[in-house]
């Protein structure tokens, strides 16, 4: 059996693609991306165990404020990144979608831990778990672990920073998709 076939078998349903491409040339975009990547304010959003490790990441020993991430906002209007820390169940999925939709652009998503990445421990024989948060909203960075240790979350944030700096201009793609669908 091929790994790829297995993959498709394992994750049924539509997966929301993340924006990609869009090469930037101007210096202004470089500066903007530098600012965006260094100022990722997370939304206070933790559903289960991973939320505790997210709190640990904020705590003194790991201290994500060194990267400027500590400005956790409780309202999605002011947040830049949703860290999906924990399982998303069918009842929660519309809420997550709504929160994501209500965020101001540009917005990013990190799927933290096995549950948010793929359903994790609750993949099989459960009737209420969404098999991966990317069935609900597009996810930029996946980080495995159950839960990932705080350094792993920091690594994910650094990965996201690198992605932003590399010049993915999300809002452009989103708009194009929106225009196409109309």
């Amino acid at each position: 059996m091929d790994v790829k076939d297995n993959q498709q078998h394992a994750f049924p349903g539509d997966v929301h693609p993340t924006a990609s491409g869009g090469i930037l040339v101007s210096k202004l975009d470089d500066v903007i991306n530098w600012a965006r990547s260094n100022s990722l304010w997370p939304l206070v959003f933790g559903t289960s165990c991973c939320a505790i490790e997210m709190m640990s990441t904020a705590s003194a020993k790991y201290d994500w404020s060194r990267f400027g991430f500590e400005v956790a906002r409780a309202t999605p209007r002011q947040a830049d990144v949703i860290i999906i820390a924990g399982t998303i169940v069918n009842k929660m999925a519309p809420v997550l979608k709504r929160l994501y939709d209500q965020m101001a652009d540009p917005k990013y998503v990190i799927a933290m831990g096995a549950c948010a990445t793929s359903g994790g421990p609750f993949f099989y024989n459960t009737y209420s778990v969404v098999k991966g948060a990317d069935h609900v909203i597009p996810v930029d960075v996946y980080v495995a672990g159950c839960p990932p240790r705080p350094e792993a979350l920091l690594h994910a944030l650094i990965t996201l920073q690198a992605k932003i700096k590399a010049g993915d201009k999300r809002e452009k793609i989103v708009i194009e998709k929106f225009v196409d669908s109309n």
Partner: protein
Amino acid sequence: MGPASLLVLILAAVAFATAAILLSKLVLKASHNPVKGETYECGVPTIGKSWIQFNVGYYLFALIFLIFDVELIFLYPWAVTVQKLGMFAFYEALIFLFILFMGFLYAHKKGALKWM
């Protein structure tokens, strides 16, 4: 620099705010989706209206404030000259404040200062 400076300050504030808000409109093309403009309430649709007739408790404090703020305004000119006027002004203010304090006690007794 005189009163004109106040106009300058207002203009500066407006210019600053306008420039800052407009810049994002110029640089960013935001995405649209149907629920983006809806009221945020912890990720679930809101129940009922937000613009309702609101609890009177908050306004009571504003009313009481008004009385005491007027008192404060009266006290300012008094404060400037009280040293020159001497003890007479002191007793006057004592009576003034005493009457106000009685009012305060009355309001307190009526429960206007109790939060509900």
